[in-house]
C-alpha cells in the first residue's frame, strides 16, 4: 500500500482573495513505503508547496490526498497537526532550529506537547545524538553550531517521534559537496531501516545519489517527468 497518495491535488494561495497565486495544479503522485524520492525543479516551481501538502502542513485546495490511509485533504488544522506529529518528520530548508535553545532542547521539542517527562525525552534523543555524532554538542546553543551540525540536528529532530515518513526540503542547500555527501549517506541509512524519504532539491548530487529510487521533476506547479533514480 502506498504511504502517500495524491490525486488531482492543486493548491492556490490566498484563494478567494485578489492576490491569489496558483502554486500546484493537478498533481498525481504515489509514494510507496520504504521509497526514497527526490523532487527537483527550479525555485518557484511548487516543490516546497508539494512537500508541505504531503507533510500535512498545508491543506490542498482541491484533489484527494491520503497519508498512511488517512484522508488529509479536507481536515481541520488540528487534525492535520495530529497526523503530522504521528507520521511525518519534517526537515526545513533553513534548518529552523531555535537559536537560544540547546541542541538537546531543540531535538526534543516535538515531544513537549506529548507530555513526556525530561528523562524520557533524553532517553529518546540519546541514540539519535550518538548516531549523528552530536553527543559532544548536546548542550550547545543551536546558534553556535556549524552548518553540518545544524543539518544533522534538524534531521535528528525530525526523527525523534520515529515517524515512518521523513520529508526534507532542500536538505543540502546550505552545505558544501563534502557535507552533502555525508548527509545523503545518513539519509540513505534511514532508507535501509525502512523509512520513507521524500526530498526536494535542485542539486544534481542529490538526484544522482544511488539511494534515490525515483526523481520527480516539477515545473510551474505540474509534474513534468518521473524518472528512475540512481538506486
Amino acid at each position, binding site marked *: 500500500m502506498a504511504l502517500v497518495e495524491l490525486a488531482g491535488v492543486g493548491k492556490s494561495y490566498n484563494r478567494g482573495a485578489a492576490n491569489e497565486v496558483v502554486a500546484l495544479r493537478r498533481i498525481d503522485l504515489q509514494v510507496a513505503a520504504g521509497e526514497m524520492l527526490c523532487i527537483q525543479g527550479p525555485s518557484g516551481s511548487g516543490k516546497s508547496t508539494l512537500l508541505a501538502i504531503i507533510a500535512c502542513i498545508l491543506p490542498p485546495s482541491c484533489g484527494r490526498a491520503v497519508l498512511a490511509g488517512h484522508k488529509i485533504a479536507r481536515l*481541520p488544522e488540528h487534525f492535520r497537526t495530529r497526523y503530522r506529529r504521528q507520521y511525518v518528520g519534517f526537515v526545513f530548508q533553513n534548518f529552523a532550529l531555535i537559536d537560544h535553545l540547546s541542541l538537546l532542547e531543540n531535538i526534543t521539542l516535538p515531544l513537549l506537547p506529548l507530555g513526556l517527562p525530561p528523562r524520557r525525552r533524553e532517553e529518546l534523543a540519546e541514540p539519535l545524538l550518538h548516531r549523528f555524532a552530536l553527543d559532544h554538542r548536546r548542550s550547545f546553543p543551536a546558534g553556535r553550531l556549524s552548518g553540518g551540525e545544524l543539518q544533522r540536528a534538524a534531521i535528528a529532530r525530525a526523527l525523534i517521534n520515529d515517524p515512518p515518513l521523513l520529508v526534507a526540503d532542500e536538505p543540502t542547500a546550505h552545505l558544501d559537496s563534502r557535507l552533502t555527501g555525508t548527509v545523503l549517506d545518513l539519509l540513505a541509512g534511514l532508507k535501509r531501516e525502512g523509512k520513507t524519504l521524500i526530498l526536494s532539491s535542485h542539486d544534481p548530487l542529490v538526484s544522482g545519489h544511488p539511494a534515490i529510487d525515483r526523481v520527480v521533476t516539477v515545473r510551474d506547479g505540474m509534474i513534468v517527468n518521473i524518472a528512475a533514480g540512481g538506486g
Partner: protein
Amino acid sequence: MLLNPWAIVLLVTAGGSLFLVGGSLRTAVRVLRHWQPGSDSARQIDLENQTWLAALLVEYGLILQLVSLFLLLLAADNFSRVLVGAMCATGAFLANPYGIPALFMKMAGLFFSGYWLVAHRLDLSSEHLPLTRAKFVALLLLAPLVAVDSGLTAAYLLNLSPEIITSCCGVLFAPGGAADGYNLLEPMAAPLLLSLFYGLGGLLFAVGLFLFRRPPQPPGRGSLLADIAFACGQLLFFSLSLVVITVVISPYVYAMPNHRCPFDLLAGEYGHIGYPLYLSLLATCFAGSSAAVAAVCRHLPGLAGPAFRYRRAALRFSLVMLPLFLLIASWSPAFYLLAGGER
C-alpha cells in the same frame, strides 16, 4: 455605591466578561455568514483560526463567570456591613430588585458557557467539525445572557444606597415568621423538603448509575429522552438543594434556629463549609446535566465515539460528586442530631 472597592471589582469583571463575549460574538457572526467546511480559501482558514479565539474567549469568560459569582457573594457580604438592617448577604441582595436576578443570571451564564465548552470540545474531536454552526448560534444566545448579567450587576450596584433599609435572612426565611407576607419559603415544611431532597438525590444516583453502566445504545429517541430527563432532574436538584441548604441545613451549621442564610456558609466563622458544599453541588449538577449535551450530539458524523466517552466520564464524575455533596450537606445536621449539640 459605585466607588466602593467591591463595586469596582465587580464592574471590572463584568466589563471583562462583556469584552470577552463581545470578541467571540464578532467571530460568531462571521462564522455563521461565511463558514465553508473543507475549503482552503483564505477566509475559511482565517475563520478556522478565529474559532480558536472564540473558544479561548469563552473559556476565559467561564472562569471569569465563576470567579465573579464568588465575588458577587463576597461583595454582598461586604455591603451588608454598610447597609442599614442587613446583617448578612441576603439582606444586601434584597436591598434592591436587581440583586437576586443578577445572582441567578450569573449562575445561568455559568451553566450555559460550561455547556458551550462541552459542545466545543466535542466539535473539535470530529474531523468534520459538525457542531461549528450550532456552536456559534448558541454563542449568539450566550452573549445576551452575559450582557443582561452585566447590566443587572451594574443596576444592582448603581441602586445600592446605604440609606435604604433592607431586611435580613431571619425575616425572610423564617417559617411562620414575618407577618408582612415577605416570607419567601414559608409554605414548604422541613420534613417535606428533606424527603424531596434525599429522595431526588437517591433517584439521581440510581438513574445515573444505570445510565453509566448501560452499554452504548444505538442513537434513538428513547435513550436520548432518558438522558435529557436525567439532565432536567439534575437542574431541579440544583434548585432544590439551594432551597434546602437555605431553609433546613444552614441553621444547623450556624447552630441558630432562626439564622437561615445561604451566604454566611462561605464565611470563615463556619469553616468556609460553603465552598466545598456549593462547588460539589455545582460539579454534580453540571457534569450530570452536560451528559445530555453529549447525548444530543452523538448521531453527528464522527461524534459517536467522543460523545460516548464524554458522557461516560461526565456521569462517572457526577456519580462521585453527588454522594460527596450529600455527605457535606448532611454533616452538620447529622452531627447535631447524633451528638445532641453543636460541634
